[in-house]
């Protein structure tokens, strides 16, 4: 699965997350670009990233910083 994540670094929070099936890779890539162009036009300085994993659980484990706050990251190894 593919996960398109828009993340506000200063707040440390995900603003939007959209998932795509593996076969929709091109659409996911286009969506990533369109989101980035839109945010740039609106002068919104969020991080936009596309991740690929077997499940949402997997992406939450390998990219914890997007999903967890500092307390959660610090208190639980995984």
């Amino acid at each position: 699965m593919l996960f398109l994540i828009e993340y506000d670094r200063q707040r440390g929070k995900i603003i939007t997350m959209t998932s795509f099936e593996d076969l929709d890779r091109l659409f996911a890539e286009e969506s990533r670009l369109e989101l980035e162009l839109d945010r740039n036009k609106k002068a919104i300085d969020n991080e936009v990233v596309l991740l690929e994993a077997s499940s949402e659980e997997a992406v939450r484990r390998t990219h914890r910083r997007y999903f967890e706050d500092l307390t959660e990251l610090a208190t639980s190894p995984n």
Partner: protein
Amino acid sequence: MLGAQLSKTQIDRLGDRLREGRLEDADLRALDAYRRAFSEAYESVIQVIREEVGLEPTGRPAKSTKSIIDKLRRESLRLSQMQDIAGCRVIVSDMRSQNEVAASLKRAFDHTSLVDRREHPSHGYRAVHLIVTNANRNVEVQIRTELQHQWAEVSEKLSDTVDIAIKYGGGEQDIRQMLDRTSKLVATLEVHEFDFSAHIAKRGYRELPDDVLKLQSSFVMQRHEIAEILDEIAEMFSEKGSSDALLN
């Protein structure tokens, strides 16, 4: 594809404009195309890792624009030299597994270069990175133990919410010292656990003798110490990190 058509000079000029913070739509589209030029190599590497090595990595087909710009600004490298435009990450339990996974991945690919950040940490960041060169493109495979991963995620979160300089060795002295100390404790613990498991395997004890049991329990204490410092960091900075006041 545009990315494949851009010359090295054009790519580096694009990098220069990004570094200066001039984000025109045309440049974002050109960067997107350049990143997509890594797709073939990325997909091939992911497929080998899944099918031949039997691991389930989380892939990041293209480094985010924000991360690319940050890297261009803090390092004196050119966009065409960036080795982690495409990459993926694998989390393993401990150093033994980390070594085994790194060795398996090295065997699975013809052209690799290993960066062992356990021996040479980057501002406390420890991991093993394998750069796989495929179809003339580099794909970075990050192999982290759970403890290395936890440290890295805490450090990155602090960089996001408190001070971006933290990730690159800067930031307030107290937080820097706590992160550095935790990183060293993780390193020591992981090496001890690695040696310990090798010793146990070699001796083949039926029952662990007292001194070995004592050593084993010291690892639990060390893990507690690491957890306590991370808790302290979270207590000190979580409120600050989540404060909307930072946005004003």
